[in-house]
């Protein structure tokens, strides 16, 4: 535990060296919701028809913004491997008295806390400024949804960040992966509204699973059973990504 705390402390010190960075991390999703969300809310003033009723676009998009924010923090954290490699300190870390798992868990735990603060700000101000009708009774699922989501995406990206040596290559990879995952998911629109081929792809996309869980936790949309299935699928995705990340750290960093 001491080692995990040491990694968390280091992440905290690094993040707080730049207030701009911290501000961006905490308030960017809200800005996204206020600008992009409001614009689309006006464009779809009749709301989005779902499960026999309609919800405003702002309400629908809240979960999309939260999953996007988790993904964003995971990208920033995995990008940290490049910064550490450039500073030369990455390999020194690997000689410190800690296991590879402790290193990865410590790195993401601090950022999960950041994600939770970010989600609290986004949901609170979303409710206060945009009248988003959240279902407080289901809010208990939000914190695990945010933590598991952020960690899952971080572990997923870690294997690539460790294997790809070039910064520009990783940027390209992130852009392509993010673009594909984001638009073939339920982040911006309901999967039911997509053409069958795209809907099929979206249903296999972990970003859809994550977004659907967060939508269930915030505005209560989705059937209990299907959301539970998606949550379990995402936990499996997290577990496999974690194993791959640890394996890469053990064997694939320097060969």
């Amino acid at each position, binding site marked *: 535990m001491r080692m995990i705390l040491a990694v968390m402390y280091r992440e905290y010190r690094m993040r707080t060296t730049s207030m701009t960075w911290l501000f961006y991390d905490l308030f960017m999703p809200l800005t996204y919701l206020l600008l992009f969300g409001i614009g689309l809310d006006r464009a779809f003033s009749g709301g989005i028809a779902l499960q026999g009723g309609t919800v405003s676009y702002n309400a629908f998009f809240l979960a999309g913004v939260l999953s996007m924010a988790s993904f964003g923090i995971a990208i920033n954290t995995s990008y940290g491997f490049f910064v550490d490699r450039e500073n030369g300190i990455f390999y020194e870390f*690997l000689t410190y008295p800690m296991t590879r798992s402790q290193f990865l868990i410590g790195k993401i735990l601090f950022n999960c806390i950041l994600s939770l603060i970010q989600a609290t700000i986004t949901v609170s101000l979303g409710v206060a400024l945009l009248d988003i009708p959240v279902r407080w009774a289901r809010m208990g699922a939000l914190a695990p949804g945010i933590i598991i989501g952020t960690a899952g995406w971080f572990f997923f990206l870690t294997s690539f960040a460790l294997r790809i040596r070039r910064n520009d290559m990783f940027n390209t990879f992130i852009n392509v992966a993010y673009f594909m995952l984001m638009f073939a998911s339920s982040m911006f629109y309901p999967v039911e509204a997509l053409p069958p081929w795209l809907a099929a792809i979206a249903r296999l996309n972990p970003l859809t699973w994550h977004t659907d869980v967060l939508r269930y936790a915030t505005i209560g949309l989705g059937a209990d059973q299907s959301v539970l299935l998606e949550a379990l699928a995402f936990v499996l995705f997290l577990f496999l990504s974690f194993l791959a990340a640890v394996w890469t750290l053990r064997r694939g*960093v*320097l060969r």
Partner: protein
Amino acid sequence: MNRSTPAIDVRDLVKLYRRKSGHSVRALDGLSLRVEQGEIFGLLGRNGAGKTTLLRILTTLIHPTAGSASVMGLDVVEHPYEVRKRICTVLQENAVELYLSVADNLATYGRFQSIPPRDIKQQVARVLEQFELDEYRNQKVIDLSGGLKRRVQVSKVFMVNRPVIFLDEATTGMDPINKRATIEAIRNQARLGRTIFLTTHILQEAEELCDTITIIDHGRTVAQGNLQTIKSLSSRAFDMSITFDELTDVILHDLEQLPLLKLTHKHHTAEICVKGSELSALSILKTLAERYTILHFEVGRATLEEVFLEILGQDDGEEIPP
């Protein structure tokens, strides 16, 4: 830990790097060595000889292809976590937190090394003073010169008391005063019973510091032992300093014809390093004395650098990428 257990024990170590082209590069080729506890050990070799590869294996960064290596009796492949609890490392690359202050760099390192938070402040103050970094304590490392960055990196390992310290080209980039302070700090640590594993290109530093030395080339040991043994392993080399009444071009031409490892001259003094027995060194001196007027001469054992050049200077091996 039993004192008779070697601090580092390497047996028949092989490391192959597989290239995308399909062929393999043999960075270590059956290397064996043993470092006793409390020793200052120097690993020498030209670029690409396998020094960094060996260091990476011993610090658990990579796995060997074959053979075994242990630190304080613990196999580096079987018990990497336990090994990491017993070592601290200064790698060749600059490894500092650029956006943290000097004091925060040390404090963060202390946490990773399990120093209790209440003791960290005290340890940071001690190390800052020891390495004359106090005036920079609140400066971000990114704003420091290269030499100071290196000093911050090296000073970190003196925060903790691990049995084995690995130093890869630790004094590179430091000015002579800091280099001297670092060498002194290393000596003090060895006196306290810590084992120092040092790789360096600065042979004078190795000569000054190390109890035992191993010279490797192409991933194999070519010489091993204490300084005297290493020197005697070479086909004997002697340093001679000869002052003539006048050092003419004719004398220099004559000297150039001799089988020398080194020839330099200043004013009327020629500094040469002779390869051969003591007799051949004296014979050269006698020949020169018969032909020219010698005002003064000194004969001494060759430096480690000359022995190193003699042992390794014969062939140009394939460079192995770091």
